[in-house]
């Protein structure tokens, strides 16, 4: 294997094909690769198959913009700033996007299995729920579980007996996406990845995926990032493309770098509940700007200053969050 390649966002996203299976870094509205989402929309990708440990603003937007055919996950929403993923709901209710439901632990176990090179993982999580109802095996109903799709397992899940300690539990199939697009705080020149704060399910998403695009706030020397190797998460041989792009998680938050832009997300949620609203939003914030730099310019320096994290805490102390502050 070679070293990862340093490239630009447009070029990296240009490598992704219609129909590819994608996963992402982050958790709900934290450390999502938003600049990559904008670029996927700008490049008019189609029929993407998302498998993610949980959804958020990034996937709701990508789905709303018509780039996605299948979404396998457990949750979508904007936390405090929007209680459901309204774009996914609208597209699913219109039959334009298919949802395959797993629980949080189940979909995580799928990614863990993928990252470990296993075909499945056992779990006791969410037994006795409708996630296991055969009537809701939607990929099966679409005829996609016939073994002819390399990335789609032949069963959604399976109840099995444990002969070692006499129990019964669930197997969920591994997932190995074509691509993981990860937004991180820091990457070394040779690809060593460091993530600060909570690491969510990023190690698993990166290691499960066949190709990995790391978008970093900062590219640093390897000598620097290796001074404390216990703080690093992924070695360079599990990374394929490196893009340096500060603020590329906006409007989601990035520990130690910037706060979630709650006001921006709330506005997105409120104005994109209809397809027309979503189309207008995309026209303004994605197609209406040339690239991510132009987007940041449109956001404006003042807003970025407010969001910037205080190093003592890892979050911003300047942002107004509640009704009384």
């Amino acid at each position, binding site marked *: 294997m070679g070293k990862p390649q340093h490239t630009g966002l447009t070029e990296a996203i240009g490598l992704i094909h219609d129909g590819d299976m994608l996963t992402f870094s982050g958790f709900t509205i934290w450390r999502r690769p938003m600049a990559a989402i904008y670029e996927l929309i700008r490049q008019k990708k189609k029929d993407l198959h998302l498998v993610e440990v949980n959804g958020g603003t990034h996937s709701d937007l990508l789905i709303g913009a018509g780039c996605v055919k299948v979404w396998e996950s457990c949750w979508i929403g904007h936390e405090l700033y929007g209680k459901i993923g309204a774009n996914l709901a609208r597209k699913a209710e219109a039959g334009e996007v298919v949802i395959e439901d797993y629980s949080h632990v189940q979909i995580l176990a799928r990614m863990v299995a993928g990252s470990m090179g296993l075909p499945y993982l056992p779990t006791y999580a969410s037994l006795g729920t409708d996630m296991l109802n055969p009537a809701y095996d939607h990929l099966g109903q679409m005829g996609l579980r016939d073994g002819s799709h390399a990335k789609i397992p032949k069963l959604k899940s399976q109840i099995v007996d444990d002969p070692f300690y006499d129990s019964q539990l669930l197997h969920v199939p591994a997932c190995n996406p074509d691509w993981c697009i990860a937004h991180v705080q820091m990457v070394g020149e040779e690809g060593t990845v460091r993530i600060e704060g909570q690491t969510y399910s990023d190690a698993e998403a990166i290691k499960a995926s066949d190709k990995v695009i790391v978008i970093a706030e900062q590219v640093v020397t390897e000598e620097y990032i290796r001074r404390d190797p216990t703080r690093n998460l992924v070695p360079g041989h599990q990374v394929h493309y490196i893009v340096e792009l500060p603020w590329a998680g906006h409007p989601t938050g990035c520990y130690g770098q910037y706060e979630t832009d709650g006001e921006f997300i709330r506005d997105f949620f409120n104005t994109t509940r209809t397809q027309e609203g979503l189309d207008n939003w995309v026209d303004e914030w994605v197609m209406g700007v040339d690239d991510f730099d132009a987007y940041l310019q449109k956001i404006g320096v003042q807003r970025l200053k407010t969001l910037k994290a205080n190093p003592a805490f890892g979050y911003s102390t300047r942002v107004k969050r*509640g009704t009384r502050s």
Partner: protein
Amino acid sequence: MTRPNYVKQGEFKPMDLLTVAAAREVKDGDIVFAGTGLPMLAIMLAQHNASPNAVCIYEAGSVDGRPISLPTSVGDARCSYQAAISSGLSDVFNQLQRGVVDLAFLGGAEVDRYGNVNTTGMGTYGMVPEKRLTGSGGNSDINGLARKTVFIMPQEKRRFKERIDYITSPGWRIPKWPSGEMVPKKEVYNRAFRGGPSAVISNMGVFRFDENGEIYLDTYHPGTTPEAVKEHCSLDLNLSRVSGETELPTYEELELLYNVIDPEGIFLQ
């Protein structure tokens, strides 16, 4: 010990009572797994009050954080402040499955007689759902594997139902797949069975579950009646075990909630 200094009717909002009632479910030393929103306020209130040794786990990957600024969600940078551990989902979910979690605080859109909860979809579900909600998140996992679970939900007729539209989170009687036959939870969870829903707290009362795993009203909040609570359910609510009125919040508890835990007014407006 001095007598608790209870607030009077009209001096609190429904949400305050709900949060305080939830906090009182925490025993000192409990390992608590809490979701975003009111569950966060409840565990933090318990820690600031009667249960200083309770430990809080958030599913994004923090353990026993001691935030000085209220997180808006479990993925928030604030969760890591003075935490014992800041890691990821695998670490905390493995602890859950290993059996360390005593109590979970969760929410839901619908609940049935056996404490099954729906957060996935309303109406007909399937390839083309009638009305899609957020999905399970960790609700079903945490509820399934903790010793006790407390659900916090608004009291509405359409939410307390005999039959919910989708079983997202497992109650005391659940489908055993692949057949789907409804059986006691213990038969499905076998070696990993540790308990189940312990209470549902709404803005009108506190519900618990009997030896058959069936819901009943335990206490009704001051200002309402058991019959009024029953009218806000579409399930046939058992009122035979009502033990009285829900204990009011104290001035100290409201002081903690409004001035210490959520001074910015993020969840408490």
